[in-house]
C-alpha cells in the first residue's frame, strides 16, 4: 500500500534503486481482512519485525534500515531522513566521506533527539485527547476503496512508530563500521515481535535480546585546552558495547550505548 502511493513511488524512484526479497518462500496470505483493519483504524505505523526496509550501498553495506509498516507520509519522512544520512556519509558518487561516520553519528543523534521531542510535545501519555493535533501532519487516504480516517488509535500507532524510530537512531549513534547486509538482514531492531512465518522462512532475531559485551576502553582524552579556548565537552558515554548475535555471529557494524531497548 505504501509503495503504491504516488508521492512515495516518485520519491523512491528518484532517489533509490529498489528491489524486494521474500524471506518466507511458500507463505501465502489469501485474506485481506487484517491488512484492511490495520489500514482503516491504526495505520500510521506498525513497526513489526515481519518486514524490514534496508538502505544500502551498491557494495551491499547497510547504512540504515527500518522494520515494519509506515503510512505514506511517515514513510516519506523516513526516506528524507535516509537521504540526510546519505549526504552525511557519502559523496555524490557514494564514496564514504572521510568524516562520514562521525557526521552520520551526529545525524542519527539529531534524529533521535528530534523524534523524541516530537513524541514529548504530543504528550502521548494523553494521546486520547491530543490525537487530532498529533496526527494533523499525516494525510488521510484511500486504498482499494477503503478510506483511512484518523482516530486516537492512529496517534497510538504513530507514537509506537516514532518511539521505535528514535530508539533505532539511538542504536546507530555509535556506529563504527557499516555492516554488510548479511549481518543485519535477519537480526534487526523492531518495534514489536509480530511476524508471519512459513516453514521456509528465515527467523529474524531481535538484537535487543542479545548480550551486550564491553568494548576495549576508549583511548585517554586529549589534554585540556587552555582555559580561554576550552569548549564545552560532550558527555562521556555511560556504557559501550557491541551487539552479539547467537550462533557465534556478531554485529560488528552497530555499537550500542546504554542498555538494550
Amino acid at each position, binding site marked *: *500500500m505504501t*509503495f*503504491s*502511493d*504516488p508521492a*512515495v*513511488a*516518485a520519491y*523512491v*524512484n528518484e*532517489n*533509490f*534503486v*529498489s*528491489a*524486494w*526479497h*521474500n*524471506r*518466507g518462500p511458500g*507463505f*501465502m*496470505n*489469501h485474506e*485481506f481482512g487484517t*491488512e484492511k483493519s490495520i489500514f482503516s483504524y491504526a495505520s500510521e505505523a506498525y513497526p513489526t519485525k*515481519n*518486514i*524490514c*526496509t*534496508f*538502505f*544500502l*550501498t*551498491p*557494495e*551491499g553495506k547497510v*547504512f540504515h534500515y527500518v522494520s515494519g509498516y509506515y503510512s505514506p507520509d511517515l514513510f516519506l519522512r523516513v526516506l528524507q531522513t*535516509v537521504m540526510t544520512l*546519505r549526504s552525511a556519509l557519502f559523496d*555524490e*558518487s*557514494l564514496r564514504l566521506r572521510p568524516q562520514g561516520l562521525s557526521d552520520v553519528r551526529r545525524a542519527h543523534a539529531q534524529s533521535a533527539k528530534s523524534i523524541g521531542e516530537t513524541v514529548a510535545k504530543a504528550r502521548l501519555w494523553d494521546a486520547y485527547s491530543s490525537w487530532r493535533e498529533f496526527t494533523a501532519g499525516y494525510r488521510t487516504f484511500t*486504498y*482499494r*476503496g477503503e478510506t483511512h480516517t484518523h482516530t486516537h488509535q492512529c496517534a497510538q500507532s504513530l507514537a509506537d512508530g516514532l518511539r521505535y524510530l528514535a530508539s533505532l537512531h539511538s542504536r546507530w549513534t555509535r556506529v563504527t563500521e557499516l555492516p554488510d*547486509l548479511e549481518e543485519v*538482514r535477519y537480526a534487526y531492531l523492531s518495534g514489536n515481535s509480530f*511476524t*508471519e*512465518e*512459513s516453514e521456509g*522462512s528465515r527467523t529474524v532475531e531481535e538484537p535487543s535480546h542479545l548480550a551486550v559485551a564491553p568494548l576495549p576502553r576508549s583511548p585517554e582524552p586529549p589534554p585540556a585546552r587552555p582555559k580561554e579556548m576550552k569548549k564545552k565537552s560532550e558527555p562521556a558515554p555511560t556504557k559501550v558495547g557491541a551487539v552479539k548475535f547467537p550462533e557465534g555471529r556478531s554485529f560488528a557494524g552497530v555499537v550500542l550505548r546504554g542498555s538494550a531497548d
Partner: protein
Amino acid sequence: MNTLLAAAALASAVAQDSKPWEGYDRGVRWEKSLDDAKVRAAKESKPILLYQLVGDLDKEGC
C-alpha cells in the same frame, strides 16, 4: 464514449478486487533481484532500497 470509459473503469475495479495484492508493487520501479539493483545503483550512484517481506510483493500481501 462515456459509457465505454465507465465500463472499462468498472472492469478494472472488478479485476483489482479479484487480485487483492495487485496494487502493492505499483508505482515503484523494482529491479528483479538485489544483484540487478546493485548494478544499476553503481551506475547511477544511488543507494539501494531493499524491501524484505514474507511473501511475494507482486502476488500477495504481507
